[in-house]
């Protein structure tokens, strides 16, 4: 029996299970090749597919490809989704048909969740930037789908909602909660198996400095945390019994530190990106990505880049960083590199 979900959030599961037995009237259904992302429809996007083939990079951990990237220079600089690099041990990159196994992570921007990679390439074709990334809603957009060793497929959709900021909590955490009644940084509970516990923090400690900066309120601390990625070790100072102590605390992805129950919408969403919120501005698309097909360029029908696919948010929503903001991020990251 198929499982179905009601969409209004007002129906119980038992009822939904029983509604999948409805008879389907006998008009033949549309063959999968002819569906919106079917093989035969994708054939109409052959020009854009040729562009994707050149300007998207496939990112591997060993032999397994886990994301895409955007080729931004002839000598092998590539933009990727930063949080997807966490705990990858054997990075490799394929541009065109060539696989590069020497990969340097040059710089990262935790706010936008973008990292800059460098491989030793020469004469590869960088992405062509679109003049404007402000496409009207309903405009076709093209991105990476699945790929084989040498061929990238496209994954198509439209701009599906207003471009906007997507708020969220800090994506990385140290693993403590603070006393709920007052806005101080006095630790209430230290969560087990987190950076805070490993660094020896205890309930009652008061955090004074984070990453070298003084912090006094929760907001000021969260602001500083946003400058770091999960996996980084950050020096902190804290007060215990009137004494000032120092420690290095490792940041963890929020979902790993706190096991939160999945919402019903997440249950029906399958494979979404670990980090999917807290972006200063996004374009929204209805492209049916998986978490693995994120990271590559978002192209218009001219094959020009209007953004970078940054998160699979859920079944119905995918986010991209607009090209305008992405190019600013790239400039900053390049400065770090050179």
């Amino acid at each position: 029996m198929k499982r179905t979900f009601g969409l209004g959030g007002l129906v119980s599961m038992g009822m939904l299970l029983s509604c999948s037995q409805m008879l389907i009237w006998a008009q033949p259904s549309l063959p999968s090749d002819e569906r919106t992302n079917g093989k035969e429809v994708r054939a109409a996007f052959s020009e854009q597919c040729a562009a994707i083939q050149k300007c998207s990079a496939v990112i591997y951990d060993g032999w397994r490809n886990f994301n895409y990237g955007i080729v931004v220079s002839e000598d092998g600089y590539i933009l990727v989704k930063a949080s997807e690099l966490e705990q990858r041990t054997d990075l490799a990159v394929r541009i065109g048909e060539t696989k590069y196994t020497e990969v340097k992570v040059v710089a990262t921007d935790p706010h936008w969740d973008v990292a800059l990679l460098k491989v030793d390439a020469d004469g590869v074709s960088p992405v062509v930037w679109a003049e404007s990334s402000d496409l009207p809603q309903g405009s076709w957009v093209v991105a990476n789908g699945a790929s084989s060793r040498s061929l990238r497929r496209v994954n198509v959709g439209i701009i599906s909602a207003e471009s906007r900021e997507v708020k969220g909590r800090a994506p990385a955490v140290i693993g403590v909660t603070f006393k709920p009644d007052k806005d101080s940084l006095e630790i209430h509970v230290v969560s087990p198996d987190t950076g805070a516990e490993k660094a020896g923090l205890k309930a009652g400690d008061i955090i004074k400095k984070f990453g070298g900066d003084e912090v006094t309120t929760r907001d000021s601390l969260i602001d500083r945390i946003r400058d770091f990625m999960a996996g980084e070790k950050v020096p902190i100072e804290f007060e215990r019994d009137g004494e000032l102590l120092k420690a290095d605390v490792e940041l963890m992805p929020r979902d790993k530190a706190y096991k939160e129950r999945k919402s019903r919408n997440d249950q029906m969403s399958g494979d979404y990106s670990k980090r999917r919120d807290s972006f200063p501005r996004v374009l929204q698309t209805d492209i049916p990505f998986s978490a693995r097909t994120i990271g590559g360029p978002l192209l218009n029908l001219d094959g020009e880049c209007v953004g970078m696919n940054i998160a699979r948010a859920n079944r119905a929503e995918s986010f991209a960083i607009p090209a305008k903001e992405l190019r600013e991020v790239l400039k900053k990251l390049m400065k770090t590199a050179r």
Partner: protein
Amino acid sequence: MRLLGKLTVCMWIATLAASSAAERLYVNDKKVPESREDLMAIQTSLQKHLAEARQATVCIKMGQGSGTGVIVSETGLVLTAAHVISGVQKDMKVIMEDGTEYEAKSLGLNSENDAGMLKILSDEKFPFINYEAKSDDGRPATRVGDWVFALGHSGGFDKERGSVVRLGRLIKVAETTVHSDCVLIGGDSGGPLFDMSGELVAIHSRVGRRLAQNMHVPLQVFHAYWEMLEKGEFIGDGPFAKKPKPGTGFMGLAVKDVDGGLEVTQVEPDYPAADAGIEVGDVLTSLNAMPLKSKEDLRARMKKFAEGDRVLLEFSRDGKVKSVGFNLVKR
């Protein structure tokens, strides 16, 4: 309750293909789009109708739940899914694209195929989608393979984001359900599915595990039951809504027999009688315009009401006769 006859539907599919061919997007009659020109034709049609479609698409809030609906008359008649309104005569809120909120009340629903209707309680004129299609028999032209777009408040209302549009094709067309690959999620329920002529063709209902499994209630189901829905009838026996059982309606009052009626001895806080302003000491004289003879009489008559039913209570306080109306709740 009889479902729409199979024969009628077959005939409908056959006739409308011919009758409204002139309005059909030409790409619909190709197996797949073949060129950039074809792709642009789809994009242009969608964008042409998007603003109007979006204006008539509303978020429906009831308790903790949230769904979508589409306004189909200037007076604020809204089509949605039965499981969004979950019952007849229920109070809910409707939120327009710009964030303006209105009170609304559910009308009828068909619990067998997930069709529901509600009414915005306001005298204002609302932007709406004309559901009277232009083809001969008053129904939109849709066939398997037709390009369609879905609107909905995915995951609930978000003013900065707006309602979310998705493009897809009709994958299956059945008697009481159509399938598309417009990918839906919770909160989209009750939202509209449009064809490329901007005609309303179906209302979102539910999804399966796979991305291509998105089910909608075709508009002909609404047409088949239109009058009953408008009158506020609860049609069928599930699975998309459960009929309230008689005896489940509760006012939140305790009474004792006195001369001329029933004196209130206790008012349960936060229950409808308390919210309606009934106080200890009030003497109830009639229920729904029928005199109340005794405590036993009241008890017997309450057994016939279900949660959500509306009652009119007449009572005297300080020698003055007053009346209040309210909806019963579950105990």
